[in-house]
């Protein structure tokens, strides 16, 4: 099976006469089923890159091949369907629906999916068996993020994209969330891409892409990733 391939991807923003290149001719490949980390200081263009990969934004030029399909020329509707069937997102601030319980938040995602997994089972797997009927406001940050992960995975996407998933969490909770992502990814055979500025998790990743000023600085492969719980922060 082919991989995720980026070729000369650029993203430019125009503000008046000035154009800013947030992503500058980026090329890399992520193997299918890998746990990859995109690392870099703030303003490096990590989030922009992830948005392009997740079909939330249009690239200005270049190719993004996901399972041999180039998603750059897709229109809005096709991108929507791509997000629906192929991608799961996890955000820094969870973005759960405040009016829905944990279980309903997961159910919401599977409403529109072709081949979803069972929401209850998924919440059990992320350790929220007893919290299913709570509203987001009644959950801790870590619990909310686990609901978000369950919601993303339940859609049964091939690709799980996480934008600073531990950014709003304390270190212990953050580590538990990352462990969950790592474990679920390998158990279910998902490709997981995590954005972070926290270099501590580098040893746990199979592939690390370092970015700076919109460009790739370094790509490292790691055949022997360590378990998340063995990492010290």
């Amino acid at each position, binding site marked *: 099976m082919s991989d995720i391939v980026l070729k000369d991807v650029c993203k430019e923003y125009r503000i008046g006469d000035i154009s800013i290149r947030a992503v500058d001719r980026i090329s890399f490949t992520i193997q299918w089923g890998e746990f990859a980390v995109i690392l870099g200081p703030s303003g490096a263009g990590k989030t922009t890159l992830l948005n392009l990969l997740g079909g939330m934004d249009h690239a200005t030029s270049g190719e993004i091949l996901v399972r041999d399909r180039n998603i750059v020329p897709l229109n809005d509707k096709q991108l929507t369907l791509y997000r629906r069937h192929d991608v799961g997102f996890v*955000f820094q*601030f969870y973005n759960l*629906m405040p009016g829905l319980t944990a279980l*309903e938040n997961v159910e919401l995602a599977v409403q529109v999916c072709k081949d979803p997994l069972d929401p209850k089972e998924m919440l059990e797997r992320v350790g929220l068996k007893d919290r299913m009927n709570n*509203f987001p406001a009644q959950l801790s940050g870590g619990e909310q993020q686990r609901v978000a992960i369950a919601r993303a995975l339940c859609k049964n996407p091939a690709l799980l994209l996480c934008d600073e998933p531990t950014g709003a969490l304390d270190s212990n909770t953050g580590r538990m969330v990352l462990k969950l992502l790592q474990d679920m990814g390998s158990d279910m055979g998902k490709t997981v891409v995590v954005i972070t500025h926290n270099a501590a998790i580098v040893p746990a990743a199979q592939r690390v892409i370092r970015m700076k000023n919109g460009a790739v600085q370094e790509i490292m492969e790691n055949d022997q990733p360590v378990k998340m719980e063995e990492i010290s922060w």
Partner: protein
Amino acid sequence: MVKARRPARPLRAKMIRDVKAGWKSFIAIMLICLLSTALFMGFDATWRGMEQNLQAQFAGGNLADVWVNGRISDNSARKIALIDGVESAQRRVVIEAETDGLPGDPTIKLLMSDGMPHVNKPVVYEGVAPEKKDQCMLQQRFAEAHHLAVGDVLTVSVGERELDLTISGLGILPEFVMFNKNGESYTPAESYGYAFVSPETLGFLPYSEITLTLKPNADTAKVVRGIRDLLDENQTTVTLRADKTAVKNSAEQVDKLHALGLVVPLLFFLVATLITWTTMGRLVENQRTQIGSLFALGYGRRTLLVHYAEYGVLIALAGALGGIAVARQGFAPLLLSFLQTIYYLPGAAPSLHILTAVIVALGLMFITGGAGLLSARNALAEVPANLLRPRPPKKVKRIFLERIPFLWRRLSFSGKMIARNMLRNRVRLFMGLIGTIGCTALMLVGFGLRDTMAHATGNYYANVLLYDARATLIGGAPEGYAKSVANRAGAAGCEEEMVTSLDVFLDGDWKSKQAFVLENGQQLIDFRDESGNRIEPPASGAAITRGVADDYGLHVGDALRLHTNGERDAETVVTRIIDLEMDQGLYFSREAWRKLDLLPWAPNAALLKGDSMDLTRIGDMDGVTRVQTRDQEHDDSNTLLQTLNMVVVLLIGFSGSLALVVYYNLGQLNYSERIRELASLKVLGFLPREMKKLVLRENIILTCVGLPFGLVAGFYLQNLVTEVALPSPFQFPQHVEPSSIALIALLTIGFSLVVNWILGRKFRTIDMVEALKSVD
């Protein structure tokens, strides 16, 4: 160095930018403020304008306080003038005459005072008052209807005599602010007018009326007793100004408008409060971090509270000013022009009461400013540090529906989501419901008024009156004259009718009422009782109409005292109550009338029925003064309806704007409060169509839930408005066409759909990256 004062300037600049950025909600609140002010001030300026006009008319014409009708002897006026409390008294000749040479042969009421008039003086608008013999001041509206001008000659026949009256002036008599023919609810100016003639012109006729004014603080009851002692009580009627039909009706109308003007705008004020409350809440909410920053910069709590209150005040001020302009230039003139069809208010203009306007504007500013203040206070209650942090997720409680698992489980997923979202946001829920109810109710008032009038007059002319034409006969036509009229016209059927005015002792005083005497076993007027059964004026006693019964609390079996023109009196009982849309009064069979022995049977109309009548052949018969087909009579009453259509359009405009503003604001609130949720849905791969289903269906549901309540509320409101807005000779049962209800429902749902469509287009352009990046 000069110390800098507290920096208010940057806040001012911020406010101007806030207004610009949120111009849609600014406009929405402003519109609601504008509509409520326009309604309130419109009614206010109308009733004040009408009242001022009436007062000016009454004062200008030195309107009498008391009218005495009957047989007036030569010295009775002088004697009455001597009664303690009477300022002045004057005799008058009042008689109805037939005009000659005008289309439709209109009737004209002629009035002449004993000497130059000093009580009930004519008010001349054009030309001069009549002074020389055979001059007259003609009713302005009648002159306009027949294109008569000062200097023209009007030929009238009074009994056997023919008079050529030179029109010296055009104007009005204030006592005829409402001028209808005896027994008619609405007489168009084309067919009935009045003229005030110079002294001596009608010298050959006896005086039949004394009009008198009272001194200030005179004891009216004592004066009336004094008059009754002087004159034979059985031969005269004494009417006080307040009981004079035209004066009474117009005064009532002013009160009614006043009351309506207080009730109807209330709804708009309520909506204005709710909308401001929610919109301001959102504005402040969106500026959470900004408020935090301003706090951090050291701006005081009070400065910021004032800042947000000012925003509300600014909106209300703009709305109030606009509303006053709309009231002054649009709404009030329109209402007045409707009133002008029923009353005669020459030169009446809306009267803007500055103090009321200021109070309304201040009230609105208080509401919107207060709403801004209160919603800002909630945000400002937090410590600055918290304000700079992202907002914790909203507390959500289970809604009551979830406690009924049976129902809850049956709801679809989107149903659950919608239900919870709707019920957790109560302010929005109420606003949506009130907006829908208000919109539907107002539209129902508009459509209902039109339907009620159209149905009542339609029913009256199509189903109640069964004759095809009415020929008005000169009083005292010989026996059998009606028959010859019918024969000449080629009518298949003919019945005679006698219309006369009658004094009835009601509520402790003599009141002038119309009496209709019909042939025994008449067939040409279809009377019905409350339950729709056909009834006839009985062989003894009087049948009274619902309007009379309601006005004086009369029931079947009640005794009535009657007398006519100071001749005779009689007692009878109410034997039937008739439901009749127009022509309220007393109905008698010829048999019952004969038993009363009040006046001899003297028919003054022939009701004709026939398929192929030639009415032109009877038009110029000597004893026939006027021939009208039933359709022509119907057309006359439609004049009223046409003016009413304008009011209907206006009400639909008002309610439509109300609905659009409320729905748009609701949708906008729903959209901007949930932009993160919407963006999340988009990230999850929901198509715009699917998002609409989850989010926008809410508005439609609100509309559909509010609709029946609005219809019910509208039904009651319309009943009230019909009662209040219509002059008392009309007795229109409420009627709303099913098609109107369907149209109202369609329009309301249509408004909701239009707003959804506008909002739905925004879904496509939600920038997920932007919406999810910024944390409040």
